[in-house]
């Protein structure tokens, strides 16, 4: 009888914590995503010998549509990327051509950075593709963080598991680690410089690092961000690429 009670209590605790984990992910989603946003950023790719920095302006509508235009350096100026649902186009001003990135090409790195087009394209909600559990709580620099483990519950997912550290009060992730099926750590994303923008906490600096190779990874600094703006509909059309 006592055993049964323990089992029931344990399963209740597991289901409660799973629910809590999903709730936490929901709150993170609410914080990080918006109806739309316009942001300007600089991306620094740290190579073995030198680093390259490029600036861009992005328009994002929900998680299905986004448009990015590279502003500097001169070599990349005018390069534009358009994502509509699961399709991605790139316009290159030097060739004046628009090409669709599809299939295996999505696995290529974006501008030589540490993340791929595919990383950008996967717009499914984490809780739809992963089973999340809270594995603990940690205190870092006086702040309390949930440590969550996400295990893939669908087959077509790039990373089998993830570990995310989420600010317990602000509901913003500060670190994410992506793992292979074998448990090998593949990538680490660090988010910092949290600022309150239009009533929500948002990381203004992100560092992506491929943990298997040497180097300092890719840094993204958000220089300006605005949520829920009035973005003209033509921005999310192929015609906008050549304008």
């Amino acid at each position, binding site marked *: 009888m006592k055993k049964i009670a323990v089992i029931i209590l344990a399963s209740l605790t597991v289901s409660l914590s799973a629910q809590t984990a999903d709730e936490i992910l929901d709150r993170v989603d609410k914080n990080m995503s918006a109806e739309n946003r316009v942001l300007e950023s600089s991306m620094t790719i740290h190579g073995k010998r030198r680093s390259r920095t490029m600036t861009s302006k992005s328009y994002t509508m929900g998680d299905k549509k986004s448009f990015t235009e590279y502003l500097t350096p001169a070599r990349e100026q005018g390069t534009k990327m358009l994502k509509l649902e699961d399709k991605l186009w790139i316009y290159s001003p030097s060739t004046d051509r628009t090409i669709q990135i599809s299939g295996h090409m999505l696995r290529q790195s974006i501008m030589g950075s540490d993340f791929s087009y595919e990383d950008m394209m996967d717009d499914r909600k984490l809780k739809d593709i992963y089973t999340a559990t809270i594995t603990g709580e940690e205190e870092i620099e006086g702040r309390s963080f949930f440590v969550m483990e996400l295990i893939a519950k669908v087959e077509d997912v790039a990373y089998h598991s993830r570990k995310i550290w989420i600010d317990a009060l602000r509901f913003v992730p500060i670190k994410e680690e992506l793992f292979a*099926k074998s448990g090998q750590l*593949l990538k680490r994303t660090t988010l910092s410089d949290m600022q309150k923008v239009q009533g929500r906490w948002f990381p203004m600096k992100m560092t992506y690092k491929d943990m298997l190779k040497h180097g300092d990874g890719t840094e993204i600094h958000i220089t300006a961000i605005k949520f829920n703006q009035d973005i003209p509909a033509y921005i999310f059309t192929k015609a906008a690429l050549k304008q």
Partner: protein
Amino acid sequence: MIAIKLAFKNLLGAGLRTWLNVSVLSFAFVLIIFYNGMIDGWNRQGRNDTQDWETGIGQFWHPEYDRYDPYTIRDAHAQLSDEITNQIKEDKLTPILITQATAYPQGRMQGIVLKGIDPKQKILKLPASDLDNAQDEYSAIIGKRMAETIKLSVGDRVLVRWRDKNGTFDARKIQIASIFRCNVPSIDNGQMYISLNVLQEMMNLKNEATLLVAGKNYTGGDIKNWEFKDLTFLLADFDKLIQAKKGGAMVMEGFMLIIALLAIFDTQVLSIFRRQKEIGTYIALGLTRSQVVGLFTVEGGAHSILAALLGAAYGIPLFLYLNSIGITFGTPDMGITIAETIYPYYSLGLIITTIILVVLSATIVSYFPARKISKMKPTDALRGKLQ
């Protein structure tokens, strides 16, 4: 017959001048045969090596597979049917599963092709059995070029990252079981061979393969849902390379031949100029102009016969010697299939073609100056008067 006898008599009578011409022509002769023999030897060895290491007597490809398009690799795999499995057991076919991966030697990132091969296969020369003998389940064999490129030795471990059939990343350390040497860079550069079963498990592609290599004893016909690629197709690049080399060789041989033929042409012009009295005498004795033209043409053409004989005198021992020791180029790594030591191959066809080429061209260049004889007036020729 008289013309031939006279021609040889005159040639031998001309002494040093004849032997200089014959020497130059014989050198061209020997060089043409030697150079073509080298290319033919390279071709034979290259084709044999490619068959031994890579192609077998042909391959069955998954219809999606295109060796020049790495993007096709992901979807190019299919189940091995019972019929195929039986052929594999009888060592008539060996399956290979291919996937793209990334190796991280010393923290560097390098795109590689991961190939799963049967450790028990006997069709290809790849030392696949080393995978069975390795202690680590995740072990690989690589070629010498690959080992040098990613700076790995036997026993070293390298982290390799790949995606399974669903696109999910996986990564493991793979130990180098052995390093093989071969003359076929297309099976070495950027490639890592692991056990077929292990790769199937890693990719979640149980009992599947990308292509099947047919061994010499393969007698079965077409296999349903697999496309047969014969040696003409599989060796097309190598054949084009050899054709290009032969084209280049023809230019060099052409120059050699022109130099030799120019000497014969000069000799002919000089002979006709200096031997006008002789020409007049022949005509006065009743020979027709065309017979005299024929005599001088045969005389010029006979240089090539003597050149062939002289060339054979020193060429045959030289060729036999080179054929026994081969010609070593060290360890060339030019990205093309070439043996470290090439044994020239002199086919009968090559020798006969070269003889015909040299004799014919020598005869033609002898004929043109001799044509002048037909315009000579016999009386003026007898007097040795310049015309």
